């Protein structure tokens, strides 16, 4: 049985096929690798002879709300990557689910850190543009203004003033 995966992230999707214990084909190019687990749970990874250090952050309990079941969060030489890894089954399942979902496009802005909502600067129904201030989140002695990532209409406000929020909590939903 062929082991084929689709890996998405950084605005790109690649097709990865595991051939054997030391070779892999990525987008039709063959690469050699080795993968070695170290005592501290990190990995030493060689790809085409170049060495990389890999940390599996997901297995260490780190998971951003957005990543979901098929997501992987890893460090490559200290740099963080969040990638979605699907095999052919899970891809099929996803496309089926997507075709049944309603088509309205909305985006929910989530808290980038735990903190205290100190002020809400918009109201439901309001038109907002990219860069507009939405609310103030206080954390680490700083007041941080959460700004609007894209143009739209405020559909829902999930928090009130003085609400303490966790990282990843929904704050405001914008509808296009």
């Amino acid at each position, binding site marked *: 049985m062929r082991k084929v995966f689709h890996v998405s992230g950084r605005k790109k999707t690649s097709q990865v096929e*595991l051939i054997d214990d030391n070779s892999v084909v990525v987008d039709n190019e063959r690469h050699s690798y080795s*993968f070695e687990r170290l005592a501290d749970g990190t990995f030493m990874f060689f790809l085409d002879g170049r060495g990389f250090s890999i940390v599996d952050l997901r297995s*260490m309990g780190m998971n951003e709300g957005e990543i979901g079941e098929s997501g992987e969060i890893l460090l490559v030489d200290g740099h*963080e990557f969040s990638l979605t890894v699907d095999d052919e089954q899970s891809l099929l399942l996803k496309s089926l689910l997507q075709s049944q979902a309603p088509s309205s496009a909305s985006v929910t802005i989530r808290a980038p850190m735990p903190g205290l909502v*100190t002020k809400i600067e918009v109201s439901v129904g309001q038109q907002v543009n990219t860069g507009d201030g939405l609310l103030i989140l206080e954390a680490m002695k700083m007041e941080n203004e959460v700004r609007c990532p894209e143009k739209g209409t405020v559909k829902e406000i999930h928090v009130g003033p003085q609400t303490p929020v966790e990282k990843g909590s929904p704050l405001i939903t914008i509808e296009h």
Partner: protein
Amino acid sequence: MTTKRQIKRLLIVNRGEIAIRVIRACKEMGITSVALFSEPDRTSLHVQAADEAYPLDGVSAKESYLNQEKILRIAEQAQVDALHPGYGFLSENGSFVERVEQAGFLFVGPSSRAIRAMGDKTSARRIAKSLGIPIVEGTIEPLNSEREGVEIASKIGFPVLIKAAAGGGGKGMRVVQSVEEFSSSFRMAQSEARNAFDDDRVYVEKYVQNPRHVEIQILGDHYGHVIHLGERECSIQRRHQKVIEESPSPIVDDKLRRAMGEAAVMAAKEAGYSNAGTIEFLVDANRNFYFLEMNTRLQVEHPVTEWVTGIDLVKAQLQIAMGEPLPWKQEDIRFTGHALESRIYAEDPRNNFFPSTGTLHIYTTPEGPRVRVDNGFRKGDLISIHYDPLLAKVVTFGSSRHEAIETMKRALSEFIVGGVRTTIPFCEFVLSHEEFRAGSFDTHFVSRTFSASELDRAEQGLLLPAIVASVLLKTSQGSILPQLNHVEKGSHSLWKKRREETYRPS
């Protein structure tokens, strides 16, 4: 003025890397270090590093490291001789220092009088002006009202800066581009200043376009002797907070250094300033300099000065506090090589430098030649929202600026943090940028050149390994090919199977 008095026991009124920095100086001087800790900090590295430690109640800074009563009570109880405030928290709080003095302790810093004169930004501007040192146009007195601020801002012309009179570290500071923005910025600056310094006075000054931020380190003793230790270039800032500093500054020559140094020494003398302090200047494209403010405490970035001068500023602070005269004359100060500092904050450079909280699942700091790490945390520690997000400072040295930069890039490549996002990839971006490498940049460098997509571009070469590794991790979790990945240390199976050819680079 003061007689000599030994410090045998020192209370360190801070946490994180700066508390550890002071503890190290104590160890090297044979002083017993006494730490304080809030509830979440009870097993933190600074507590472990200290000789003794006393608990503060509560979690927030206000309940703990800003709790003056409690801190003074512990100072009595622990029978310390002196208090070191570090930076931030109570370090520039004149009324706290006054209480310390009145309780009969030495304060490792200037007198409360000097703090009031120079620490208050508006008062410092008045002193500089009186000495003929150029200042940036704006108010001398704190604003009485929002309306007054709008009037003055309109007069001197937008953009303007609203700054906390008691401020420092970029807290309580806002750029205002237009009249419309003034009101919200004014209130945010006030509120931040109140939280950070317990003092909500703000003032307005002209926002100088494309300036460089250059500061002069000074040291003064109790006998009126003041010297300067050269400059630090601090123009690389995000959110008006420094993130990479260096000494010397690529734009400061001997002549400018002498002029700025003399102005700094003159201002410090006028204020009767003793101990370590820093005068911040703006320098414009024509190398004119303007007095900005004085930081009446140790700076975060003091290590770069330590490396190029060979002087330990914390030890010097302690000696000055004990009433020792400065052992150096101005002409004894020699500058060797080039030093660079990168501040490693728990912040997400891809998301507007928002603080990033979590557990340090992986935390490996750099080592090796010409690298100094001042670090406050270790693997397993929790980074919470309660305190400043500075994790560590990496300082590198080189015989040239080029070597210091290459050493910093190498050091940052060894600094691996997993569990929170950090400014490391951002610092790597700066260090590789042509403008930075050429030494031609100003305080707008970051906003002009940096975006999250720049990080994606820099990390392009890691994407293929990330893709393959993510599949290997995935299959190991889903147990499709479990024997492939989790080769335990000590097992030779995978090794033996692997052909040497595997290692040949493509």
